């Protein structure tokens, strides 16, 4: 008898190919276009040309960062959806990025140096998570309450963001808005997002069988021998740390965490041993493509990538909803 995962492996191979293709595309196009053959040579050999520097100092770091951040966002979304057993759960909807945004905008308003932004974002995201946790977790774990508390917290952060924006001097507004919309133009050190992605992926793969059981509900998972409380806390912390890391690197980029897991569920069902690596590959590819579009569509101007993920994400999500998967699963 064939293992049910056996016929899903080709999909992972396909996603791997898509990831490679989107990374290649992102290296080829931009202010100067570089042909595939030249790109291949330049990847390995420094010929002292400007093209070499464009690839190695600008495009490659940025694309790898985009892939790392996209993968992290998709993974965080997938974990939150498993935790809350709700296809709408996503760290952004739960107000985590709102908390980060308030902290960063506050730092900008106070005129703190640029280097403070990432730590402030991380701290803001964690503070929002702790607040959500303490507000929603008094006594027992109730996913509806957690989701509702998160949505209300997000609304509160959004009001605070408007408040800070209205206080800010006009010179600072463009920078603030770019950060709010999510932007990868400063993310030129891919080591951090890729390291976060790698460790998150390993942990999530290790958890995957238990995540499958968690989908059956708390009582059923416990009856089948899962330490469900411990698992819930662990998923929650992992998803939160991943989100905090992504927000501190690239600002508030929405929809990747919602869209990537959904497209995959549509294609393969709900086994996390496929969903985890698949979401990472798909989320990474989507953000690489979106970022490539963001820096080329109206060149030489650059769009914040969060605008594009939302512009594409909204119709895509509505399409998936119409196909009935999201609605049926909730």
């Amino acid at each position, binding site marked *: *008898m064939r*293992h*049910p995962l056996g016929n899903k492996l080709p999909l992972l191979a396909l996603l791997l190919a898509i990831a490679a293709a989107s990374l290649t595309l992102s290296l080829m196009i931009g202010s100067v276009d570089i042909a595939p053959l030249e790109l291949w040579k330049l990847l390995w050999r420094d010929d002292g040309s400007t093209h070499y520097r464009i690839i190695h100092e600008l495009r490659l770091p940025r694309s790898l960062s985009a892939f790392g951040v996209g993968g992290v966002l998709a993974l965080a979304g997938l974990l939150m*959806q498993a935790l809350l*057993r709700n*296809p709408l759960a996503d760290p952004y909807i739960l107000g985590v990025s709102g908390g980060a945004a308030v902290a960063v905008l506050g730092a900008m308003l106070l005129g703190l140096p640029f280097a403070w932004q990432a730590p402030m974002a991380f701290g803001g995201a964690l503070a929002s998570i702790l607040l959500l946790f303490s507000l929603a977790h008094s006594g027992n774990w109730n996913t509806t309450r957690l989701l509702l508390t998160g949505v209300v917290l997000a609304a509160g952060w959004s009001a605070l963001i408007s408040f800070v924006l209205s206080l800010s001097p006009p010179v600072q507004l463009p920078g603030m808005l770019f950060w709010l919309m999510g932007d990868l133009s400063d993310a030129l050190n891919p080591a951090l997002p890729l390291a976060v992605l790698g460790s998150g992926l390993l942990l999530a793969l290790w958890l*995957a*069988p*238990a995540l*499958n*059981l968690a*989908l*059956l*509900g708390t*009582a*059923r998972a*416990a*009856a*089948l*021998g*899962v*330490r469900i409380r411990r698992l819930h806390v662990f998923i929650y912390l992992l998803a939160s740390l991943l989100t905090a890391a992504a927000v501190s690197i690239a600002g508030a980029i929405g929809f990747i965490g919602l869209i990537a897991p959904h497209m995959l*569920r549509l294609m393969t*069902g*709900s*086994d996390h041993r496929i969903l985890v690596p698949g979401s990472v590959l798909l989320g990474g590819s989507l953000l690489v493509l979106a970022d490539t579009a963001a820096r080329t569509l109206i060149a030489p101007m650059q769009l914040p990538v969060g605008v594009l993920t939302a512009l594409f994400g909204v119709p895509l999500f509505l399409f998936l909803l119409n196909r009935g998967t999201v609605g*049926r*699963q909730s």
Partner: protein
Amino acid sequence: MSPPVLTTRKLSLHIGRTKVCSNLNLEIQPGECWGILGPNGAGKTTLLHVLAGLRPADSGEILYGRRQLPDLSPREQALWRGLLFQDGLGGFPGTVFETVLAGRHPHLGRLGWETPEDLRLAQAAMDATGLKGLEQRNVSTLSGGERQRMEIAMLLAQAPRLALLDEPSNHLDPDQQILMLRLLKKHFSDSGRAMVMVLHDINLAMRFCDNLLLVRGNGQHRSGSVTGVATEDNIRWLYQHPVSLLQAEGTACFHFL
């Protein structure tokens, strides 16, 4: 002699203002089939979950074999007892086969990867419950009765020593009720394991169980063999409703007036 599959000593439990039981002493031996009966809201489901170790009792002890329930790891508990839930399954449903296969979880190794033997047992459980051919269907497209049989298949795949069943006949047509209860009985009590089921239908309980536990919802209980416990007096006491026992051709059944 092997120890009882399940023992309770001086078990007391209440939910809100309802006293489910106080000082309940039970010994469920290998091969036995117990029925739990009681009026709505008496706490039968809660009692079953306590026996499964999913929630604590107020006081008293529960033993699986010779070991205290809290001393067993969640996985050891899942190998010893399985639970058929009354409420439906929510969340993101996968295919029927994947869901039945989830029942094998306590048997899997560290990596959580199913062996061919696990796949075979899951398939056998699907065949036994009449679900052959529905393997690739999405759970959300099943009818209520098919879903109930899928949950029974999941429990068969889990293959615990003790089956705790919360209204196993729910959603099933009359013929399927008999078929599924026969199947469960063959798998659990007839093979030297044991089963405990919460039932609404006293007549089904009389037909399939050899022992009964009546919980009244005020802390009082009566327990023992079916012949000793299923009397007109006891059933009238239990439901506070007039009943008469009709007997014909070696079978007996309660008629609620």
